[in-house]
C-alpha cells in the first residue's frame, strides 16, 4: 500500500478539487444564498430606495424620474413628520412594554422552571406564536370595544371609573380602548411579546447558576444581583428581542387599521402611498426611515453580541 490512496469516485476527485481550492467550495456554498439575498433582495431594496430620489409632478401626479431631494423634504411636512414620530414613539413604547412583561416570564422559565414546568413554559410561549396573528388581533378588537369584554368586566366589578380615567388621559386616551393608543399599545405588545421572551430566555439560560450564587455569596442583595449580574447578561437577548418588537411595530399596517383612531403609521403610510395613492417616491422615502433605523440598530446590536441570541 502506498502513501497516496487512489481517487475512486467523482466525489473523491471533487473533494480533492475543493481541498486544492478552498475558495471554490466556499463560493459554491455561498453563491446560491448570496445570489438570492444579495442580488435579488438587496437589488430590489436598492431599486426601492432609488425611487425615493424621484418626485411626483405637482400637476399630473406622475412620477418624475429625475434626481431630487424634494421627496425627502416632504417627509418633514408636519403631517408626515407626525407619522414618523407617532410610529417611533409607539415602537419604543411597545419595546419597553415587552421587555417589562417578558422579563419575569423569561427569567422564571430559564432559571426556575424544571421538568414538566419547563415544557409548559416553552409551549406557553411558542403556541401564541403559532396561532394566527390576524385572529388574535380581531379577538383583541372584541376585548377592547366600547361594548366589549373589558367594559363588561369593569361593569361587573364596578371598576368603570378606572377605565374612564384611563380613557380620559390626554393624548393616549380616546372614546373607547379600541379607538385609543392605549388599546393599540396593548395589541402590539401582545402580538410581539413572544418575540421578546424567546431570545431573552435563551440568553438568560446561558447565565450559569453558579454566577448568581457567587454574586449572592459576595453579599449582593437580590436587587443588586439583578442589576449588576442578570440584566447585563440578559442584555444581548433583550436587544435581539427588541430588534423584532421595534421593527415589527414600525412596519405593521394591519393593527393600526383595526385598532386605534385611524391616524397613520409608517407601515400604513408606505402601504397606502405606494399601493393606493400611486406616490411611490414618497412611499420609498418613508420606507427609508425604518431601513436606516434598523441598519443602525442592527450594527449596534451586533456590537453588543446580540446576534448570537437571535
Amino acid at each position: 500500500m502506498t502513501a497516496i490512496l487512489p481517487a475512486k469516485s467523482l466525489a473523491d476527485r471533487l473533494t480533492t478539487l475543493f481541498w486544492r481550492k478552498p475558495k471554490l467550495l466556499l463560493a459554491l456554498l455561498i453563491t446560491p444564498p448570496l445570489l438570492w439575498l444579495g442580488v435579488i433582495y438587496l437589488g430590489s431594496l436598492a431599486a426601492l430606495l432609488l425611487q425615493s430620489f424621484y418626485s411626483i409632478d405637482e400637476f399630473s401626479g406622475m412620477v418624475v424620474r429625475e434626481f431630487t431631494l424634494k421627496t425627502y423634504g416632504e417627509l418633514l411636512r408636519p403631517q408626515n413628520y407626525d407619522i414618523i414620530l407617532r410610529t417611533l414613539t409607539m415602537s419604543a413604547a411597545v419595546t419597553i412594554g415587552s421587555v417589562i412583561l417578558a422579563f419575569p416570564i423569561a427569567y422564571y422559565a430559564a432559571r426556575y422552571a424544571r421538568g414538566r414546568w419547563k415544557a409548559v413554559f416553552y409551549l406557553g410561549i411558542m403556541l401564541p406564536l403559532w396561532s394566527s396573528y390576524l385572529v388574535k388581533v380581531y379577538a383583541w378588537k372584541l376585548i377592547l370595544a366600547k361594548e366589549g369584554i373589558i367594559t363588561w368586566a369593569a361593569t361587573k366589578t364596578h371598576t368603570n371609573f378606572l377605565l374612564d380615567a384611563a380613557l380620559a388621559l390626554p393624548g393616549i386616551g380616546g372614546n373607547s380602548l379600541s379607538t385609543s393608543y392605549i388599546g393599540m399599545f396593548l395589541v402590539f405588545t401582545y402580538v410581539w411579546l413572544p418575540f421578546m421572551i424567546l431570545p431573552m430566555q435563551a440568553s438568560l439560560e446561558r447565565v450559569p447558576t453558579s454566577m448568581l450564587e457567587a454574586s449572592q455569596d459576595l453579599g449582593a442583595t437580590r436587587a443588586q444581583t439583578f442589576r449588576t449580574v442578570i440584566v447585563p447578561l440578559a442584555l444581548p437577548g433583550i436587544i435581539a428581542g427588541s430588534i423584532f418588537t421595534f421593527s415589527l411595530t414600525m412596519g405593521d399596517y394591519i393593527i393600526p387599521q383595526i385598532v386605534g383612531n385611524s391616524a397613520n403609521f409608517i407601515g400604513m403610510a408606505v402601504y397606502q402611498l405606494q399601493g393606493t395613492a400611486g406616490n411611490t417616491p414618497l412611499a420609498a422615502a418613508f420606507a427609508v426611515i425604518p431601513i436606516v433605523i434598523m441598519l443602525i440598530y442592527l450594527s449596534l446590536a451586533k456590537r453588543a453580541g446580540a446576534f448570537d441570541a437571535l
Partner: protein
Amino acid sequence: MTKTHKAATTAALLASLATAITPAFAEMTEVGASEGQVNIVAWPGYIERGETDKAYDWVTKFEAESGCKVNVKTANTSDEMVALMNEGGFDLVTASGDASLRLVAGKRVQAVNTALIPSWSKIDPRLQDAKWFTVDGVHYGTPYLWGPNVLMYNTDVFKEAPKSWNIVFEKMDLPDGKSNEGRVQAYDGPIHIADAAQYLMFHKPELKITSPYELNEDQYKAALDLLREQRKLVSRYWHDAYIQMDDFKNEGVVASGSWPFQVGLLQSEKLPIASTIPEEGATGWADTTMLAADAANPNCAYKWMEHTLNSNLQSDLSVWFGGNPVVPAACTDKSGMQTAEGCTANGLDNFDKIRFWTTPTANCAQGEGACVPYYRWVSDYIGVIGGR
C-alpha cells in the same frame, strides 16, 4: 377526455395564448369560446354567489352556462382598485367614477365593443354615454350600478331622520342629549373631502363651489378646515364596510356617511338602523365594469358584461347592495326582488341631484391648473386624519 373536447381545449388554449401575446389594442370583433375563467376586482357585496344569503346569487348560473369560473377580488377604496389594476392579472373591474378616468388615462383598460353586448340598448339612457367611462365617444366598459352615499343613523338615537349632514361635521348634542363626540364616523378615503365640499356648497355659498370635485386652493382649504373640526368628533374613520357595521354594533357609533349596502345588512340583522339623504344632497357612485387592457380572458369578460345587464341580476343586485339598476326595466319587470318603490327609495329619480365621484384633476372648469389635484387630496387627508 374525448377527442373533440381535446381539440376545443387546444383551440381555447391557443386563442388565449394569442390574446396574451398580442396586446389587445384592437377592439374585439366577436366573442369566442370561453377561456374557463374570469378575474374581477369588485366592491364588496357586488358579486354574490349566495354565500351570505342563498337568495342572492348571480354567479353560479352564469358559471354553469358560460363555462367561465368567476374569481373575485374585493377592494375597499377606489385607490385600491386602481392599484390592483396597475398590478395586472385581472380581466374586469367595477370602477367608480373617481377611478374610471384614471384607469383610462393610465391605459389600464381598453375600449369595449358595445356591438358584442346585446343588452347594451337596455341601459338607462342617462348612463349610456356617461362622461366617467366615455372618452371621445369611446366606451370603456358597461355601467353596473349607481347610488348615493347615504347618511346612516341609529333610530334609537334619532327618532326622526336627521335633516342635515351637520351631525357628522359639527360638534353638537344629538337628540338623546349626549354629545356627538366619538359617536360619528367618516369615510377613510380622500374622496371624503368632496363630502365636506358639498356641505360647504350648501352652507357657505360665498365660497362659490360649483362642483365638490373641482376645488381651487381657497375652497379646498375651507373643506380641509371643516374636516379638521370633524376629526375631533370621529374616533375612528371607516375604511371597510364590515368594520363600519361592527362599529355601529359594538363601538357606540350612531351616525355616519355610508352605503346603502351596510344599511341593508344591518337592517336585515334587525338592528335599529335607517338612512336618509339630507338637505345638502349626497355624493354618489356610478360604477362601470371595465375591461382590462391586457385581459387574459376577454371572451369570458364579454360574457360577464352581457350577463351583468340581465334584468334579473340588476334587480337582485340593486336590492342586495342598495343602489339603482343601470337597466331601468329591472325596477318594474319583477324579474328579481326589486320594486318600483325600492328604486325610488334608492334615489332613482335623484340622478341629477347626486354628485357622482370623479377624480379631481388640476385642470378643471375653473381653468388650467386651477384646481387641487387628487394626489394632494391623498396626502392632505392623511394629515387631517393624523390630527393636522
